């Protein structure tokens, strides 16, 4: 079973994602900001895929991504951005920083499963 780390400061969004991905067979962990997510990845390293918001307190998603991709010696999860930022330059920047895919909010079940399929997670 793939383990997914959902990183979003909104509990409602985390719940919405959980509702979609649990029936797809994913085990869900949650983090409310980039710092918590980084601790999870660095100390536990168990996530196969991270679903990542951008605008968050403490550490935003892009800062998390930059740090994650420069962490040596940890298994690197796939990262799917999941954000209200819907401009092509922002997508380009996230991909350049090492994101594997990009979801623009609002999302639905089809969009999330389509991205998982593209990444070979389903």
């Amino acid at each position: 079973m793939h383990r997914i780390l959902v990183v979003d400061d909104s509990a409602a969004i985390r719940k919405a994602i959980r509702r979609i991905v649990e029936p797809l067979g994913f085990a869900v962990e949650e983090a409310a900001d980039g710092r918590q997510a980084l601790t999870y990845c660095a100390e536990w390293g168990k996530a196969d895929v991270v679903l990542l918001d951008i605008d968050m307190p403490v550490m935003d998603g892009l800062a998390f991504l930059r740090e994650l991709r420069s962490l040596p010696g940890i298994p690197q999860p796939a990262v799917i951005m999941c954000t209200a930022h819907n401009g092509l330059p922002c997508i380009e920047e996230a991909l350049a920083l090492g994101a594997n895919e990009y979801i623009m909010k609002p999302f639905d079940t089809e969009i999330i499963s389509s991205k998982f399929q593209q990444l070979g997670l389903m």
Partner: protein
Amino acid sequence: MTSAEDYRFLADMLARHSGIFLGDGKEYLLESRLMPIAEQFDLPDLPALVQRLRQGAGAVLVQATVEAMTTQETLFFRDATPFKALREMILPALVPSRRTQGRRLRIWSAACSTGQEPYSVAMLLATLAPPLGPAEAEIVATDYSPKALARAREGLYSQFEVQRGLPAHLLVRFFTQTPGGFRIAEPLRRWVSYQEHNLLQSASALGQFDVILCRNVLIYFDRPVKRSVFECLTQALAPDGYLLLGAAETPYGVTESLVRAPDPCACPGVYVRNGGRARPAVATVAAMASPQRVAASR
């Protein structure tokens, strides 16, 4: 639980915005598709979502609701298999032979609906190494619906549509952003030539094709109609050409003019003329640029 009144309201809204009729008894569909939307907008349940919509919700919520209810039949790169077959088996076989013959490869997206399939083909060709362009390949796309064709020609897609099946790196590379959505890049838009065509009629006016994609449309026809469509498609197929069907479609039991292609890359749904000259290649040549498969190894 969705009340009958809420169900009717949502069905009416869907019909008004998309022309799609939901029919009765799809409550389970609404629940599974709309709860994630409700939660994203901080609404506790479906009645609350319907109430917000009744009160005149913003365009974003209305569109999210309609899109989530729509069964998506026109994804970019719908099903990985035909595109894998094209990339790894069909194009490596056909491209060198057409080059030798000094003529362009001809590809037909039959029943192209709103254009996602032909544009996916164009993106695939453009990301081969080395890329193929209009000088090497012609892409013809047809549909019976003038309305669908008008949308296809416009090449303008909503934020939802460009996220279904289309990898983000291709969105960035091949689309521009406009206030109305995401528009396919002009060179790709001009590459695809759209024509109105009914699959039940002869395709002889369109000429002969090296590759025909006719996917997920034959399932709607009965056997005699299927048979005549298969005959038309076979006549339009070059002796060494390939026909790509949807996963649930087969000519077996309907016509003997088509057989499954010899299958070096294990792609089902690929057919050739019975007694034809198709010789599929074993995958070597063209790999699509960064498909980014990152399935976790653990």
